[in-house]
């Protein structure tokens, strides 16, 4: 499935496959358009995927590269960090706790090289950037992308510039700077960082901003989450997806991934019901959904879910459209619900997620409580990042025992307390 052009989602104008992201006629977003799949033999396609490497490059037929990176042997080292092929975990105890009588799965994308789904999109963007001759990687980040770009640039031997809001979680700052990137803390929120990077991308010709001028390629990387889910479920679609919404790019590309595979006959089923999750302190898309509006009014974020704190979501209108056309929805949860969501997931699945995953888990619990989940349906909860990156969110949420190193002290302080 070869990439053919960049195409405007609004007015369908087409452009060559270079580093551009905005339609020059109407400012609409550009997306990668592929050659038609008519006549493709699904069985041979499936075999090619199954024979591929344990990374997103097994889906190279569906990614926008002229020459997919070498998958095996010595050349594979030039791929950089291998992203994807993260576990899909059955979550029966979580289902039981939230009162859901169906089949619940957790897609744990914290199991990526820098512990978030951003390694997928950065893999694709950086590979395409290399094809186009760029030698500098850059990004505007709420934290996870910063980790992924800095690490991928280190792995590929590229220079990098990473722009973040100045008040990010310390774990995300440390987990970026360690890779030797040029780390730029911007005095402002993410939307300010993004504006600066849009301006810079127009001035710095040799720079590949993965989520600005490389955004059409970058965004395609998110489809690999749905490819993996479908493959892990035995080439079937789930009935429902619950996933976080920041810019709305991941949310919409998950659906696009399923649609592409349905179109070429690789899987059976239909595009899942799509439920989006936002933090109440930054919920422009959930607010527009509730109001029946197709315009997302920008907001100033104020939430512990900093990785989702985008007040001016680029793909907001498309996320709204997708939630409505699939009979899904978009909910917002409070910071307390987010903290509870992190604990709920950890206690029932052994997966420790960051605040964004707390948002997603709390939204799932809300859907169950409201009776929106259908008995017997198959639901996948998309967990996008790692709890060790947002430790403040769990500080003070549990007690521990302190004892002297002897039996009596243990009996006194632990056994008696546990029995009470």
């Amino acid at each position, binding site marked *: 499935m070869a990439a053919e052009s960049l195409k405007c989602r609004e007015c369908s104008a087409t452009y060559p496959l270079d580093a551009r992201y905005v339609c*020059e006629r109407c*400012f609409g977003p550009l997306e990668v358009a592929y050659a038609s799949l008519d006549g493709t033999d699904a069985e041979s396609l499936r075999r090619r995927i199954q024979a591929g490497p344990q990374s997103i490059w097994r889906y190279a037929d569906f990614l926008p590269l002229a020459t997919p990176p070498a998958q095996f042997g010595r050349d594979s080292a030039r791929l950089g960090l291998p992203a994807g092929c993260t576990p899909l975990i059955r979550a029966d105890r979580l289902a039981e706790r939230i009162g859901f009588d169906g089949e619940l799965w957790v897609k744990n994308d914290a199991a990526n090289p820098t512990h978030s789904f951003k390694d997928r999109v950065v893999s694709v963007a950086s590979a395409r950037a290399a094809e186009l001759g760029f030698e500098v990687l850059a990004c505007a980040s709420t934290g996870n992308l910063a980790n992924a770009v800095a690490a991928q640039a280190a792995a590929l031997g590229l220079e990098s510039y990473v722009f973040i809001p100045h008040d990010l979680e310390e774990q995300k700052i440390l987990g970026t700077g360690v890779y030797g990137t040029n780390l730029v803390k911007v005095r402002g929120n993410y*939307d300010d960082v993004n*504006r600066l*990077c849009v301006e810079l991308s*127009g001035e710095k010709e040799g720079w590949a901003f993965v*989520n600005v001028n490389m955004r059409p390629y970058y965004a395609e990387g998110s489809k690999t989450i749905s490819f993996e889910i479908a493959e892990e479920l035995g080439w079937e679609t789930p009935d429902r997806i619950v996933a976080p919404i920041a810019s709305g790019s991941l949310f919409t590309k998950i659906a696009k991934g399923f649609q592409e595979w349905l179109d070429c006959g690789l899987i059976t089923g239909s595009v899942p019901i799509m439920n989006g999750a936002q933090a109440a302190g930054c919920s422009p898309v959930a607010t527009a959904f509730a109001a029946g509006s197709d315009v997302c009014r920008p907001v100033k974020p104020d939430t512990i879910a900093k990785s989702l704190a985008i007040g001016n979501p680029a793909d907001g209108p498309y996320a709204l459209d997708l939630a409505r056309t699939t009979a899904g929805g978009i909910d917002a949860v409070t910071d307390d619900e987010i903290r509870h969501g992190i604990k709920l997931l950890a206690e029932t699945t052994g997966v420790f997620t960051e605040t964004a995953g707390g948002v997603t888990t709390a939204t799932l619990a809300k859907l169950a409580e409201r009776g929106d989940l259908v008995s017997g349906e198959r639901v996948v909860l998309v967990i996008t990042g790692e709890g060790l990156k947002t430790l403040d969110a769990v500080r003070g949420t549990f007690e521990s025992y302190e004892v002297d190193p002897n039996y009596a002290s243990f009996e006194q302080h632990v056994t008696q307390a546990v029995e009470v």
Partner: protein
Amino acid sequence: MAVTVKLPTQLRATIGGASSVEATGATVAEVLDGVYAEHPELRDRIADESGELRRFVNVYVGGEDIRFLEGLATPVADNGELQILPAVAGG
């Protein structure tokens, strides 16, 4: 009442490559009208038929998105700066 209007790269080729233009006006709407008077070809790139900004166009005054201010009625100071940027980025 001259205001500097900074243009994104996507609009520069249309007007011969300049990265900014000068216009006069006391509000965003007046400044943009001034820009359109000088460069009519920019109008339908930035605005729809009703004169509202296209949905993927962001306009900033003093670094702030005008949707947080008074929209097209946002005042612009003399010698001030208005910046036009594409909305589709990030995330």
